[in-house]
């Protein structure tokens, strides 16, 4: 099985636009947008733009149909049982906050929510706000030394008050994949629900939420080759139906009087106001495009690059890998400390080599504390990444040591 990353690159407008040398290794922060997604967005805004689900004229019908087709595309991508289980949000953060607000409203003081110490701030701080507001108890799954979530500790942590386990599907720092079957089994044993933060998972291929057996799944369009400003919350039908609305406005109501209002069923209940219509349509195109990719070949390609990167890093003086040392059960996201050099200095030197790398606390301060660092350098590999990108990074890191010490 062969896969041509260079051919794939040509489908991404940005790579044609940025002059060489340019080695984009920050897809975990935002992936580049695929041409089909951008085209779909532009086509929508310039030929079919109208508000959705309200107008009866042809343009509005076409806009509504396109928006609902994007919902169907998201359902296919996640293998959701029904398109009505897809809620469009403005991003993964908004989706996670929606669950924190809505599921949180169904909880009592003393009920427990479990997260891990490896969460992105977007799946941590919303739960802290909930805790501080309501007296819900927030508990933290510990981590193994290499940063993996110690899901084996879960059964002992759960109690009859455990209501929700909210974990990242794939760490944005280490790329480690969470052992979802273990989590779901433990959750089922106490009747808790499971929310997965799929923000980092989705750019590496379609997901099967039914096979995973979870209850909620959140992700962002801009991290899976789609437009910015749109995201998805999937919720199992009955799980979504049990949630009250958090954000209110046009399009999510039944009867409205000054005294009281009743609410539309999901997904509309959770889509107050005009949604990001064209961005959702672009996301639908990105997800359909992804669904047609040769994922086994892409994973082999990404794996080869990950091995090349890990080998190269191992040869650098003072390099400390944060996260698993092997390539198994992870996506190709690699964070590391380089001889104690500050990540911003390292990334600045890399930039001279045309290497785009992210450095800092990576929105995961508890995990940084676990590794006892203030910040890290992170390289992330996507299907359009090439061996040249990895080699440029390795050369740049060697130069950074020279320049900075």
């Amino acid at each position, binding site marked *: 099985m062969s896969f041509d990353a260079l051919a794939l690159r040509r489908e991404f407008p940005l790579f044609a636009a940025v002059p060489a040398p340019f080695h984009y290794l920050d897809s975990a922060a935002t992936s580049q947008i695929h041409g089909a997604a951008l085209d779909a967005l532009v086509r929508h805004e310039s030929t079919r733009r109208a508000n959705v*689900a*309200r*107008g*009866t004229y042809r343009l*509005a*019908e076409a806009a*509504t*149909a396109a928006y609902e087709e994007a919902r169907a595309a998201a359902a296919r991508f996640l293998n959701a049982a029904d398109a009505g289980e897809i809620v469009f949000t403005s991003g993964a953060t908004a989706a996670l906050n929606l669950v924190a607000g809505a599921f949180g409203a169904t909880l009592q003081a003393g009920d427990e929510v479990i997260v891990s110490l490896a969460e992105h701030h977007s799946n941590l701080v919303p739960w802290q706000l909930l805790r501080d507001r309501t007296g819900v108890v927030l508990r933290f799954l510990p981590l193994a030394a290499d940063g993996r979530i110690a899901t084996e500790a879960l059964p002992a942590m759960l109690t009859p008050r455990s209501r929700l386990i909210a974990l990242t599907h794939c760490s944005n720092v280490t790329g480690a994949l969470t052992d979802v079957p273990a989590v779901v089994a433990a959750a089922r044993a106490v009747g808790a629900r499971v929310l997965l933060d799929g923000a980092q998972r989705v750019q590496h291929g379609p997901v099967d939420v039914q096979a995973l057996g979870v209850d909620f799944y959140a992700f962002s369009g801009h991290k899976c080759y789609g437009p910015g400003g749109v995201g998805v919350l999937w919720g199992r039908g009955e799980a979504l139906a049990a949630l009250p609305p958090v954000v209110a406005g046009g399009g999510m*109501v*039944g*009867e409205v009087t000054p005294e009281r209002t009743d609410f*539309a*069923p999901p997904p*509309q209940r959770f889509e107050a106001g005009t949604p990001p219509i064209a961005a959702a349509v672009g996301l639908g195109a990105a997800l359909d495009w992804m669904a047609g990719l040769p994922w086994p070949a892409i994973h082999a390609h990404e794996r080869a690059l990950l091995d090349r990167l890990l080998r190269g890093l191992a040869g650098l003086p003072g390099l400390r890998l944060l996260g698993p040392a092997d390539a198994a059960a992870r996506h190709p996201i690699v964070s590391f400390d380089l001889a104690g050099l500050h990540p911003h200095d390292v990334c600045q030197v890399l930039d001279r080599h045309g290497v785009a790398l992210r450095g800092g606390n990576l929105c995961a301060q508890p995990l940084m504390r676990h590794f006892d660092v203030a910040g890290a350098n992170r390289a992330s590999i996507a299907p359009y990444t090439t061996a040249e990108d990895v080699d440029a990074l390795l050369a740049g890191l060697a130069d950074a040591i020279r320049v900075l010490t």
Partner: protein
Amino acid sequence: MSEEIYQQAIKELAQAAHGAGRLAQPTASVRLDNALCGDRVTLDLRSEGDTIAELAHETRGCLLCRAAASLLAREAPGKSADELARAHAALTALLQGDPAEPLPWPALSIFAPVRAYKSRHGCVLLPFRALREAIGSSDRTD
């Protein structure tokens, strides 16, 4: 088949408003809103065993919704829950452009031109959905 949605037959049915009003002693009552356009059907049902004995409705809606409610109220009495489910399914299929032949109630064909206007399908189907819910709820209380 005419492509004019607003055929004389639709206007006459809406105007006739068969079954308009409420029942004194319904075995089931359902109020259903079309959240997107604000149309509303309040439907009362009196069933005897598996048969619809009486049906009445208050419908606030467009011509299509009112014509559908009126047609339903004219046809339903004396029919079984199964027959009504078949009519509902046939109407849905008709709107989706895949009509069953022959239609269980020939008059349903007046809604064929609505096929092309997806945003209006809900208007036509609302009274049928209300009836399905009413039958379901009277099942439960039997």
